[in-house]
């Protein structure tokens, strides 16, 4: 499920079944022209990716709104803000929190995050609608699904 009214209505009636959260972490900027295309493309891929994940596991996992931050930011500040999100989420009986991202900077902070980091290796820029990319995403979705299930 997603953070939208129709799903939350369902959530409130079936809380005991939905114990997992996924938060996409996406850096944003318009200041570095060299990286603009690459970073925005990753954003597109991650959107498709997290939506597909949500579809596979929608009866047990809720996909949060994207956590955006400025790419050149102080990551320690972001880490604290992100943990604030988790603190709020945990008011509800969620047991498993996953963060999903292409941004390798989070890896250094992994230990301090109040949840499990799923870091996806880089994708080359390309066509989001291409068959290759779609089948790559499907493969990855399968793998990550397995990974998340291992926590259940």
């Amino acid at each position, binding site marked *: 499920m997603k953070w939208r009214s129709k799903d939350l209505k*369902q959530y409130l009636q*079936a809380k005991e*079944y939905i114990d997992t959260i996924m938060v996409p972490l996406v850096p944003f900027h318009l200041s570095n022209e060299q990286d603009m295309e690459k970073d925005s493309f990753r954003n597109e891929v991650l959107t498709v990716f997290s939506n*597909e994940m949500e579809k596979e*596991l*929608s*009866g*047990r996992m809720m996909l949060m709104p994207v956590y955006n931050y400025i790419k050149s930011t102080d990551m320690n500040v972001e880490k604290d803000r992100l943990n604030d999100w988790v603190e709020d989420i945990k008011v509800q009986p969620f047991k498993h929190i996953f963060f999903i991202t292409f941004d390798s900077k989070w890896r250094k902070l992994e230990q301090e995050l109040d949840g499990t980091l799923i870091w996806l290796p880089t994708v080359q820029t390309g066509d989001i609608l291409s068959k290759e990319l779609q089948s790559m995403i499907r493969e990855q979705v399968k793998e990550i*699904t397995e990974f998340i299930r291992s926590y259940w």
Partner: protein
Amino acid sequence: MSDKKQQVSRRQFLNYTLTGVGGFMAAGLLVSPLRMAIDPVLKESSSGDLVNVGLSVDDITSEPQRVDWTVEQVDGWYESEPSRSAWVFKNDNGDIVALSPICTHLGCVVSWEGSEDYPNQFFCPCHDGRYEKDGTNVPGTPPLAPLPYYEHEVRDGILFLGNPISREGA
């Protein structure tokens, strides 16, 4: 003096327009379900349309296989969910069966033989829901209804699928 007066009236003007737009949008929201019902152009494009899912009938065996395809949606401004999936196989009578993979419990995607412990069944990874091969839910597991099946048609040896049709609980 006149300058000030002008500013006030400009603000008022903006206020009017904004309320106007807001009111218009509210009216739009109220009207649209009705329009949807009567205006065929606005209806979901998928209703009744069968879609080529890119699978030749010769490739359909008694072993369920997953096919994914996309449907074109007219409701462009609202986030549509254009990708669909089905488990397709031939049953004992040789008839083609296309089942929706969406678990009738809370909507996760089920897999054929998704658990080693339950061969010959569809398995839902979320709360261990199970279904027989024909889609009937296994009593004692969370789902209370069978998997929906897709309306289907074969044209020139190619499988076309339409909308999923829900079934009554077992």
